[in-house]
């Protein structure tokens, strides 16, 4: 049965939060993936909504491109919001 496609499962844990990747499973189609996701990942009241996405439909960046993609932002310090004086008493920044 290993020929069944792989599905990535995303669960929204509560309203207002975004869907979060929780794992993956095998299923023959989206409907079955949803049913299995319910059994595998939502036994303990974890969610209000489930997304299933075929793993093969996800395009990912290659680890080898890491420097090309992410390095340039490190030498542009002005992109980071670190030049503002923080008023005393602001706690959650």
């Amino acid at each position, binding site marked *: 049965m290993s020929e069944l496609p792989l599905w990535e499962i995303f669960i929204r844990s509560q309203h207002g939060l975004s869907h979060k990747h929780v794992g993956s*499973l095998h299923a023959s189609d989206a*409907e079955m993936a949803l049913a299995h996701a319910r059994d595998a990942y939502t*036994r303990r009241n974890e969610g209000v909504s489930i997304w299933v996405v075929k793993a093969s439909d996800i395009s990912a960046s290659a680890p080898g491109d890491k420097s090309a993609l992410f390095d340039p932002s490190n030498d542009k310090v002005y992109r980071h919001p670190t030049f503002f004086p923080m008023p005393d008493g602001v706690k959650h920044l």
Partner: protein
Amino acid sequence: MQFALRMGDSTLVLGHRLSEWCGHAPVLEEDLAIANTALDLLGSARHWLSLAAELEGGHRTEDDLAFGRDASDYFNLLLVEEPNGDYADTLARQLYFDAWHTLMLEGLTGSTNAKIADISRQARSAAAFHLRRSSDLIIRLGDGTTESHDRMQRAINDFWIFTGELFDKDGTDETLIAGGVIPDVATSQPAWQNHIEHTLGAATLALPPVTAMRSGGRRGVHGEHLGFLLAEMQFLPRAYPGARW
């Protein structure tokens, strides 16, 4: 009390049967799903057996009822004690049971007994999910390959003789129906038949031929398999009474 035992025993025995798949199901996802179903049924069984113990007068607990009775004192449906067989057998048994169980619980939510109504309300959504699952899988297998179709058809036919008992009524039932405690199962039979026909139709499976039905489980008259199931399920509490862990 008799009715609570019947509900408790059917859910307990079926829950135990399904738990036998744990670690053996065809794929990991099914293993989890079927174990979840088993747990849902076991949870329901605990409610029913607690209620039965209470109605009896309280000198026995749910555990005493589950582990201390022999087969002839079990009142489950014959359908649920049948062995798992292959996955087609398990699913056919499950479809027949789930379709009956959801209708029964639906009717029981209107019970004049507040506790029965309460237990049924809690169990209802899980049962509805079980029915969706068993119907969906049977459609997939029936409408799958030639082999899955043939095996599914054979299983659907094999378990058919146990479905008559789902709608049996005896004096106990009549009294409870008259008091509004339980629904009249006969009125749910067309809805049950309808769901089965619809599911089998979508699965390209044929409705089994009319046959003489087998019954007796609800009176404590069982087939040869229940004793073995109970022997396994009850071994520990009987060998080590009062054991805790």
